[in-house]
């Protein structure tokens, strides 16, 4: 890996190679859905959509866990808040049909407020204690959504909310198939481009945050809270900002999920989801933006590959399916986690300790 990072360092210093790299990356990103739908099938574009949504979630959690070092086991609650915000503001549930450009910031804002609601009472907690409280918070949100169908029906309870509006741009429903310049674009395909764009913005914001004054304050809080205070860092505000910003990304991802799926129910926001997102962060490389991206993409696509290959392989080998792909998935997932923690305890692609020499700021 160090050879690779050295290689990356070399490439970074050469502007022309860098430019060509960006162009190639752009072409790859644009053509990936065409490639997938023509080889392994159209469902894969949809899987890719969910992978991108999870990547956004993982990047949001990375701010809280990776940068500020606050172990949050209830992160999926913000995803739920964002998803339900979209569902309530753009569905027949209340007859509201706000446009996406209005809901997206509202959902982000509501999620940020919930982030502060979680952050404020837990400011004095760290490590395991914080993990337990956040875990409880995540469950409280889910149970609330599950039971908020009476006395006044807000969330439809366990049934969930149906017929959620998709993103509509200039009258075009993005979840339907459109023909542009003679090429057919499925809804999942169009959403893919929207998600790639939003993910790029997310990555950009994360990179800027990491290198900002606030990012440095988060790292100081993570490493030693008392020392951070002694250096003049207002640790209370800095931690609240971590919760709020992390929650914002969760809220946006939740909204996109609701609009892509067209349906939300409390079932999508169980504890296991929080743990999965945390695994993406830890497995990829806590605190390292591109490591976290890698973790999210791997943990969302590998199970799908397994799902589509486990049964045929078993059949061709043994003539029958002995282990259900779903069971096999958890088995292999557990094995993979143990292996990674043994062999690469800091994650698959951890951030290199920056050796800043000279007078760079």
């Amino acid at each position: 890996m160090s050879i690779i990072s050295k290689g990356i360092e070399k490439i970074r210093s050469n502007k022309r190679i860098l430019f060509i790299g960006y162009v190639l990356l752009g072409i790859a990103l644009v053509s990936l859905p065409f490639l997938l739908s023509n080889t392994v099938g159209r469902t894969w574009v949809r899987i890719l959509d969910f992978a991108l949504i999870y990547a956004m979630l993982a990047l949001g959690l990375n701010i809280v866990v990776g940068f500020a070092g606050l172990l949050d086991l209830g992160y999926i609650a913000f995803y739920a808040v964002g998803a339900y915000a979209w569902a309530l503001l753009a569905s027949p549930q209340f007859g509201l049909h706000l446009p996406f450009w209005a809901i997206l910031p509202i959902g982000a804002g509501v999620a940020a407020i919930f982030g502060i609601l979680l952050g404020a009472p837990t400011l004095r907690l760290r490590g395991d204690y914080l993990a337990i409280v956040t875990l409880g918070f995540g469950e409280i949100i889910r149970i609330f959504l599950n039971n908020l169908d009476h006395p006044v029906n807000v969330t439809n309870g366990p049934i969930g909310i149906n017929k959620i509006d998709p993103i509509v741009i200039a009258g075009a429903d993005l979840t339907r198939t459109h023909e542009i310049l003679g090429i057919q674009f499925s809804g999942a395909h169009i959403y893919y481009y929207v998600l790639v764009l939003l993910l790029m913005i997310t990555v950009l914001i994360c990179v800027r945050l990491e290198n900002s004054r606030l990012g440095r304050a988060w790292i100081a809080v993570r490493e030693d809270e008392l020392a951070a205070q002694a250096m003049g860092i207002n640790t209370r505000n800095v931690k609240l900002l971590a919760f709020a910003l992390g929650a914002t990304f969760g809220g946006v991802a939740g909204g996109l999920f609701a609009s892509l799926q067209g349906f939300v129910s409390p079932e999508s926001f169980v504890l296991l989801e929080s743990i999965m997102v945390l695994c993406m962060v830890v497995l990829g490389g806590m605190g390292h933006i591109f490591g976290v991206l890698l973790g999210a993409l791997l943990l969302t696509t590998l199970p799908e590959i397994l799902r589509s290959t486990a049964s045929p392989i078993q059949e061709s080998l043994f003539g029958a399916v002995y282990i259900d792909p779903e069971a096999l998935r958890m088995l292999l997932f557990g094995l993979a986690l143990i292996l990674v923690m043994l062999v690469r305890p800091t994650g698959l692609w951890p951030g290199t300790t920056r050796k800043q020499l000279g007078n760079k700021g």
Partner: protein
Amino acid sequence: MSYLSVESLGVSYGAIKAARGVSLSIKEGETVALIGSNGAGKSSTLNAIAGLIGHTGKVGFDGIDMSSFPVHKRAAKGLALVPEGRGILGRLTVDENLRMGAYLRVDRKSIAVDLLRIYELFPRLRERRGQTGGTLSGGEQQMLAIGRALMASPKLLLLDEPSMGLAPLMVEKIFEVIREISSSGVTIFLVEQNARLALESSNRAYVMESGELTMEGDSQELLRSSKVRESYLGELNS
């Protein structure tokens, strides 16, 4: 006129009173030591002044009553604490640790100048600038902690037991640097168990015993006082 003025400061942990009625003052440019045996309440007093722990009484600094200020606000007013245990950011490099010390400052140019000065003061840190803080030796970490506090360009440097856990040779070296910092005009308040070194490196000193200040005076005079020599310098009646 006093720079730091502490009036009847008290610190208690539940029912235990770690410090009672502590009143002391420090003038600008002075180096003042607080000596005493283990558990006398020295660190509690220092931490209370820095704002790390709650206290009763008044802490005034540079004409402002800071009694109700949290730690970071006191830091913003010019107090820089080198905490016991050093508080090194273990996974950051020496260079990053030092830059973090200048968190509250915005003038990049003067930060760069100060960084060079710290590296001149501690050539050892310059050699290790790319190394992570956690891999340094105890003495190097103490240097780093002091250097980082200086990066805040503080008005008052608060040092908590800089000799703790260090080899005798390293202790000498650290105190050499403390004297150097002192002579460059920085006001220092030093809490230290090693009474001889503390008195030799300071202008004035206070002696603390079970939570209360029992003596104060010129450091040279205290060094000659029979009571100090007997209790803190390990000398029998000479």
